[in-house]
């Protein structure tokens, strides 16, 4: 595991930004970190990098403890970071920012720097404070990708970018992964995560809602649509794998994480007039899981 947390928690006054988070991110993969605004994504990332200290719980990156200053320094040597705020040093030009960052990373990759400069077309001679949001994002990404690190931790790496640029960024991330760099990126954009992520972690209200290989999630999550001639027997379907049921007079829409065969068997045993098993997109899995989580709290 390249990133591992055990009951990681962060409290700001009376607000619990992160509570009991148990992340497990395998090395060598692209991991997408999904969650709503304020769900705790940025706070978690800042704790991993030692920018913020956990209130309780533990975390490890590269097997090193995140709350030990010396270990944290080593973590930062091997990590490329792009934060939520991509403002960088306004008084420096793009070129100065590159030179500055390059001086701190002995494994800096000049070939990456050159290629990304070509692709991203950042105006190097202008001061960063004159940059648009998109330019800042591109420069911030360049600075993290060219570092020659083992792990990239990116908070909303495609924020403020147009679709063409987004594709270029995703391509750069894929290239990095192909060279052996592990990628951990948080995003609002489910489509991006679905396109390149091997592993998905979904955080909600400071806790992990879902965590696993994307292919496995998409292979086991299903929606089972059932129609009955009589009243739909919702209560008959509280069984393992059933996460959430939407019921109508004659129909049930069952959102299931696994065990679909048993659900179908039960439906047939109850003389369902129609049984329809539908695969789900990541967006649907995410939204339905949110519904279930919110319902569980009520």
């Amino acid at each position, binding site marked *: 595991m390249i990133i591992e947390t055990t009951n990681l928690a962060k409290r700001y006054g009376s607000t619990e930004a992160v509570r009991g988070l148990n992340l497990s991110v395998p090395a060598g993969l692209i991991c997408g970190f999904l969650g709503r605004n304020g769900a705790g994504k940025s706070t978690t990332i800042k704790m991993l990098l030692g920018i913020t*200290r956990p209130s309780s719980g533990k975390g490890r990156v590269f097997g090193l403890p995140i709350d030990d200053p010396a270990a944290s320094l080593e973590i930062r040597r091997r990590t490329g970071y792009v*934060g939520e*705020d991509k*403002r*960088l*040093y306004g008084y420096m030009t793009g070129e100065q920012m590159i030179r500055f960052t390059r001086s701190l990373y002995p494994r800096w990759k000049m070939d990456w720097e050159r290629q990304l400069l070509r692709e991203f077309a950042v105006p190097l001679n202008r001061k960063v404070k004159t940059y648009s949001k998109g330019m800042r994002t591109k420069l911030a990404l360049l600075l993290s990708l060219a570092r020659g690190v083992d792990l990239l931790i990116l908070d909303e790496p495609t924020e403020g970018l147009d679709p063409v640029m987004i594709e270029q960024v995703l391509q750069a991330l894929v290239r990095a992964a192909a060279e052996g760099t592990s990628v951990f990126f948080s995003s609002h954009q489910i489509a991006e995560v679905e396109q390149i992520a091997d592993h998905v972690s979904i955080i909600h209200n400071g806790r992990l809602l879902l965590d696993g290989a994307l292919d496995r999630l998409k292979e086991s999550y299903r929606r089972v649509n059932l129609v009955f001639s009589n009243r739909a027997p919702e209560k008959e379907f509280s069984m393992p794998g059933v996460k959430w049921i939407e019921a109508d007079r004659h129909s049930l829409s069952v959102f299931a994480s696994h065990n679909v065969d048993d659900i179908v068997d039960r439906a047939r045993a109850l003389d369902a007039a129609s049984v329809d098993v539908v695969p789900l997109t990541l967006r649907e899995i995410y939204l339905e899981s949110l519904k279930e989580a919110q319902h569980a709290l009520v």
Partner: protein
Amino acid sequence: MLWYKAWLESRARFIFCLVGLQALIIHMVLAYDNVLIAFEENPATYKYTEYVWRVFTYRIQVGWTFSVLFLGFGGLVREKVLGSADFTLSLPVTRRRLVGVRAALGVSQSLILGLLPFVSVPFLSLVMGKSYPYTQTLLFAFLMTVGGIVYFCLGFFLSTALAGEYAPAAIGVLVLILVNQFSRQFEVLKPFNPQDFLSGLHYLDKSTYFLEGPLPWSGIAVSLACAVTLLLLSVGITERREF
């Protein structure tokens, strides 16, 4: 390149203060006659060395004190307001080193700010047909900068302890004014007035207005101890702070 970054961050302030102080000194020397007339003194009879001491060590000292106070501002807390703190904190450098580099650069800049303008006094005096010895210039410069570096450290400390863009400046200026006022109001505190101390008031030969005898080493030592304490506190605060 951390020094380069710290330099770029403080460059404008440093150059502004340097130019300002130097201009002030040039004006003071070249406008010698006019200044004295404004103070209702007779230029013919007024001792030049007294003039230098009075005007320079008080006026320039105030200028220098506020300059170095402001030089102390900036740093990670300010970066948080500007949005780059996360980037800096994710770099493979310890917070101690970040603070250390900024402090070291600031101290160097403060010393230069104190030395350069003062050192130009003897030269400018020659232009006016007066003379002023370099040794005295260096003594006064030394006393002010080494004894007064604590002001830079105060500004530096406030910049790490207080959040917000304006709080350190507001509190810093307030502290300076209050300390000066208090030590003038109360007889008991009079010998400890910082302005008098830095100008060497109690060690002056009143006939020559030169610093005679040994420098006030114990006072300087206390001041330096406070300076170092403030810097160490700044490091400690930064290491523990949440960003």
